[in-house]
């Protein structure tokens, strides 16, 4: 059976070059980069190189990159780190209602311990309104954390404008660029960010490693306490093999950004077009233009997402959904809720995210399989029959 992996926004396979390098590294280099001896110094060299590679992907300096255990920890370090370092300056944080749980739940945690958090609404495409942001800023605002692009619906936020507004008010700006770095151009200076989150496993690097970009001079307090690693901002023996893999993945992503952008965008548009043509009663989610090149998100009336996922999986197609039943928390997607989708369409949502593993034949295969899956599930849906019979 053909296998079609359409969950690249969830995680990616290792790029073959990353895989080779990691195996080579793991075989030969095991030192602790903090050690003085030759084994340690050798490991440090690799970590330093990876730091430069990651910095190059986002136009920063190597010294501004702090490696973490992933995007989630990087988001926490940025937000809690600023909150703890600046709480005497103010206690107000602005974020959006469509952030990844790593940002959203961190902000909710801060709200519980005394910070005030504004969760900005978004429009039906998932866009934050810079006007609203402007109005939300108070004298005690210390941080704006708004994602660069959304992981579910692929909408790209007006980060540059947000960066300008933040700067104008002397407020720090953090953006979660987990879904954009390596997919669309990301430059910390163009964006005007002070803090930016990266994750390795979304760009064909290993899982369990990420980074926070911290503009020189921005003060953070650590979330995790311990030894002196990563300038004491992220203590713990470095995940050297993860970092080495991440560095290589960043280098490759930068190198292949343009070609992959165009390639996946074409596949994306073919898939979107095909679904609209072949399946009735669908809703296209997210922005038509301000959209990640690899993101497709539709809701199919009358059917439930997990059932779709299972049916597709049996045909070798891997995708994801914002339905309550397909999430570990059993809650419907807060992103689809925020863009105003009714429950039925949230539960009936399907996200397909393209990447290195896909080609045009995959899209043809999906377009062949998906209509049958949807119509079978609709055939015994009480909603379909209430509404259409």
């Amino acid at each position, binding site marked *: 059976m053909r296998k079609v992996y359409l969950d690249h926004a969830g995680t990616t396979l290792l790029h073959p070059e990353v895989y080779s390098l990691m195996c080579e590294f793991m075989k030969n280099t095991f030192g602790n980069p903090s050690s003085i001896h030759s084994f340690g110094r050798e490991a440090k060299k690799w970590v330093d190189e990876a730091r430069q590679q990651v910095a190059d992907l986002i136009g920063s300096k190597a010294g501004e990159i702090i490696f973490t255990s992933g995007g989630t920890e990087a988001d926490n370090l940025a937000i809690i780190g600023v909150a703890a370092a600046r709480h005497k300056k103010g206690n107000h944080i602005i974020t959006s209602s469509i952030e990844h749980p790593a940002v959203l739940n961190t902000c909710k945690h801060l709200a519980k311990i005394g910070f005030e958090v504004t969760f900005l609404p978004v429009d039906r495409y998932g866009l934050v309104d810079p006007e609203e942001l402007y109005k939300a800023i108070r004298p005690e605002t210390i941080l704006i954390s708004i994602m660069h692009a959304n992981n579910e619906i692929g909408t790209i936020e007006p980060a540059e404008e947000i960066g300008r507004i933040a700067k104008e008010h002397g407020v720090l700006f953090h953006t979660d660029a987990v879904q954009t770095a390596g997919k669309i151009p990301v430059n910390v200076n163009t964006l005007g960010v002070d803090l930016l989150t990266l994750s390795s496993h979304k760009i064909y690097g290993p899982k369990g490693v990420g980074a926070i970009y911290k503009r020189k001079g921005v003060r953070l307090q650590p979330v995790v306490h311990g030894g002196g690693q990563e300038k004491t901002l992220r203590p713990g023996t470095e995940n050297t093999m993860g970092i080495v893999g991440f560095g290589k993945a960043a280098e490759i992503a930068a190198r292949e950004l343009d070609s992959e952008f165009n390639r996946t965008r074409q596949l994306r548009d073919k898939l979107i077009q095909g679904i609209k043509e072949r399946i009735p009663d669908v809703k296209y989610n997210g922005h038509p233009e301000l959209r990640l090149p690899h993101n497709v998100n539709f809701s199919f009336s*009358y059917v439930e997402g997990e059932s779709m996922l*299972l049916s597709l999986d049996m045909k070798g197609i891997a995708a994801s959904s914002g339905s309550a*039943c397909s999430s*570990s928390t059993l809650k419907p997607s807060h992103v689809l809720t925020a863009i105003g989708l009714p*429950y039925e369409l949230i*539960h009936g949502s399907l996200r397909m995210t393209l990447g290195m593993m896909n080609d045009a034949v995959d899209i043809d295969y999906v377009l062949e399989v998906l209509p049958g899956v949807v119509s079978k599930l609709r055939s015994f*849906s*009480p*909603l379909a029959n209430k509404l259409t019979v």
Partner: protein
Amino acid sequence: MYNEIVMDHFQNPRNVGEIADASGVGEIGNVVCGDILRVYIKVKDEILDDVKYMTFGCGAAVASGSMMTTLAKGKTVEEAKKLTNKDVAKALGGLPPQKLHCSNLAADALHKAIEDWMNKTGKGDKLDG
């Protein structure tokens, strides 16, 4: 995640559909939580001569509906009343813990359909539980 029995009932759900002249209909769930199960029964001589279901729901809901109808069909009304959500989950060989609540729809919907039939036919007071 799901075992083979569940996947079989999900892939080939038994007794899906509507019964045009049903003796009773019961529906449980709502779009908010994401699972709806509607059951149709045809009662003849106090026996569930036919049971069909429709569902908007996850794999566990589809399979539970299928298994429930399979278990209920041919049973007397009294027997069917005693069918529990646990029986359904057990017959499916178990469900992942976080999915148990989805399977809880199936027997409940059946009981609602029986209740509907009893109300219609004046067969007695409201069924409890």
